[in-house]
């Protein structure tokens, strides 16, 4: 694989991506199709010229899969703490016009978080006449510290049937990290290379 490769992959490649971008971002995001920047090679860097002056969008230039016709952006209000309700503001934008959207909420780990007693798990509504998005608030109560997730789904009925999408909204409670799911076991092979060994059932 020594072929001299032509690496001209759009402007995305010229935009710096760094962990600092991630760290600097507050607990808000624009889901579904946010954009990851990428590291600078030898070309001029958009970020390099104004890194402190003008923040880059989260994922400007991500070469991403086609999205369903929704995007979800969110903002976590306040600092979540165990046992206290925390509110997440949502904006769900649809490219399908004023069709009613069904927005649903799921918590996969019941030991981590629960819905506030008044919180419905699903709502259906259409954008207001003068708006291009649906604004919603959802309230959850963290049950423990850690990086917890509220899954938000959106769906719409079209002539071709239902179309939907799903994203996870991270809610950082305290300083704990994410509970990772294990799939297989990490070992070293005979050459010392890390392998994740999966076993058939």
């Amino acid at each position, binding site marked *: 694989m020594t072929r001299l490769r032509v690496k*001209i992959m759009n402007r995305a490649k010229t935009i710096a991506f760094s962990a600092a971008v991630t760290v600097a971002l507050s607990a808000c*995001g624009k889901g579904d*199709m946010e954009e990851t920047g*990428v590291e600078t090679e030898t070309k001029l860097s958009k970020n390099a010229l104004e890194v402190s002056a003008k923040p880059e969008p989260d994922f400007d230039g991500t070469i*991403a899969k086609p999205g369903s016709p929704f995007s979800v952006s969110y903002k976590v209000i306040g600092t979540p703490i165990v046992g206290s309700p925390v509110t997440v503001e949502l904006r769900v934008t649809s*490219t399908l016009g004023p069709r009613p959207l069904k927005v649903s909420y799921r918590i996969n780990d019941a030991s981590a978080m629960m819905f506030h007693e008044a919180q419905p798990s699903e709502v259906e509504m259409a954008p207001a006449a003068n708006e291009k998005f649906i604004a919603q608030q959802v309230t959850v109560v963290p049950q423990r510290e850690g990086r917890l997730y509220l*899954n938000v789904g959106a769906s719409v009925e079209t002539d071709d049937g239902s179309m*939907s999408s799903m994203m996870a909204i991270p809610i950082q409670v305290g300083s704990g990290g994410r509970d990772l799911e294990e799939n297989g076991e990490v070992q070293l092979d005979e050459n010392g290379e890390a392998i994740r060994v999966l076993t*058939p059932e």
Partner: protein
Amino acid sequence: MTSRFYSRVAVFAMSVLGLAACGGGGSDSPDNNGTTNRAPTANAGMDQSVDEQTSITLDGTGSSDPDGDNLTYTWTQTGGESVALANGSTAQASFDAPDVGIGSSTTLTFQLRVADPSGASNTSNTDVVVNGVSNSEPTVSAGADQAVTELATVNLSGTASDTDIGDALTYTWTQTSGTGVSLTNGDAANASFVAPDVGIAGETLTFQLSVNDGTAVITDSVNVTVAEAAVVVTVSGTVFYEFVPPNDSCRGLNFDDIQTRPIRAATVQLIDAGSGNMLGTTVAGDNGGYSFSNVDGNLDVRLRVRAELKRTGSPGWDVEVRDNVDTSSNPPPLGSRPLYVVEGANFNTGGADVTRDLTATTGWGGSSYTGSRAAAPFAILDAIYSGMQLVLTADANADFAPMDAFWSVNNTSTSPPDIDAGELPTSFYRGDLDSLFLLGDAGTDTEEFDDHVVVHEWGHYFEDAFSRSDSIGGSHSVGQSIDARLAFGEGWATALAAMALDDPQYCDTFVPGTSGGFGIDTENNNSGSQGWFNEMSVATFLYDLWDTNPDGSDTNSIGFGPIFNAMAGPQLNTNAFTTLFSFATELRSMVNGAELAFVDAQLARENIEATSIDIWGTTQGSITTSPNQARDVLPLYTTLPTDGTTINICTNSDYDSGRDGNKLAEYRYLRFTTTSAAAYTVTITTTTPTPPTSDPPPTPPDVIRDQSDPDMFIYRSGGIVAVGNGPNENSEVFTTQTLPADTYVADLQEWRFEDEDGASSDFPEQICFDVSMSPL
């Protein structure tokens, strides 16, 4: 000479005189004084009968000489078992009687010759009968111990010796332990047999050699260790993975219809279960078949399939599927994170060829994943392999640059991104890492069985590795009117997936076990307004060029070859941005006749004016998409004078309800040609008022959020050569480096349309700018 003469005379005289006495050979002869010399008389003594192994004296003192001469004596043995004589030149010699064995005897004969000084001589013989009085046992050896393999012919070599002269030895071999065998020549010194078939533990056989000398029987034993023969076998079989197809209309995955598919071209290894050592490595065939020959029999082993495609030479490739998630404080580089493998249970190779299949299963437990999701990495790998196979139809020697696909059960769809933590914005391709990142969190979205999604992202890798893409990326969904560069890149990737998988139905399912998901029909684009700004128009155009299924104007196929050639050739170096115009223009130059007409018909169906098309879209007529009558869309490229002349050009966010900043009309394309090398100053001034709004200032108030922020990038054949993206309000002024004579393009945008924090609600949807470019 004299003595020889006299001897002859003496012999002659004896023969004449017929002399015979107790001795023999005596003669007379004249001496030097003229007197006659008389011969001596030899006397070897009386015959004797003696015991074996005793010292015997031969006594010649009875010899005499009539002249009284001094005599010389010479004893020689003339018969019987040879013995060593002592004092053989004196009157009395001696020897040791040999060992003849009990009951036996042997006769030894000796001759004594006496001679006087004149050379006259005489001989006399005597016999010694040696009688055996005791037996000497023979010495016996059955040979050294041996180690042999089963069923081999084994020779037993015995030896024996006996000092008793008269003993005749007889040999007898007998087996004293072990599985019985049939001995050949068991009554001879050298016998043989065929080693028995033994088990893996082997066996020791013992044989005894008995030697009989007529009086005694002496024995010796030998051990023969028989080992199992070195059995080698062939281990072969097929490796599979389970694939879960989508439900109808892409509404979730159908776990009731799991398909078993071969793992194609992956690395298969045979592992010694005891030591963990790798015994062999091979590559599965396109049917998933593998084979290891010359494997030791009766060995505990297991199969390992690595989620990788490796091939050196032409064609060549290097694809690996790894786990990106590592939340440790110092995670290794992405390329060193764990490679997925699937391993089967241990099995014994036995004594004959063995067939062993292995299937990487889904881990689905009926309503959720309950087991190891082993199929996932191989489903991803196989989708990528499908893409590579399509490319090989156009370039059989394609050299695929190394790439990785990162997937994890923890890869969830969220923002902001953290690859180490598995927090991804979505599934995407990163050219700087030559890597795909794919979702796998069962609570939100999994991609492993959404093969169109995998190949779609691999299609972006193709652009990176074989062609070029000027796509600005970012959020996009079907039916949207988006930037022409983004539309082409995404349409290309979707079409490539449909071609590689030979299936026009793109499916993206979400939470497994639910009906979540959506689909794209690449064959029949029906999303949004058709045109060069719609990724579905691009996808359908490309797919219909390739597919052989007639529908509407799609009555032909040009195959993948011309498509590949246009992408890997002129599209790579086009002066324009990579859009449907640049591609279609170059493709049209590669086909003729009916194929050209076919291409034009497909373009026309997507509202592309074909016959006068150029890479700039110069003759592209008005488009019908709303809103606002598609303002600020055409011309696609506006000529930017390089003499300082000011032009006014507008952008708008009419198509960008989500404030993604990558939709139609948000970037305006400029083009200019320089005839000599020069540096330039570019000045951009916002001419649209951006009035103060009621929005609160940001916290912290780092940027004035209400004002326009024009940005511009200048490109030469896809590479950025100048950037003007400062934070100044309502203006941008920047200086280029020296630009060689060439044709350049630039894109101008209102940055606020993609500003993460969003422009205020009062920010105008359309922003216009004065733009000028002057040489320094």
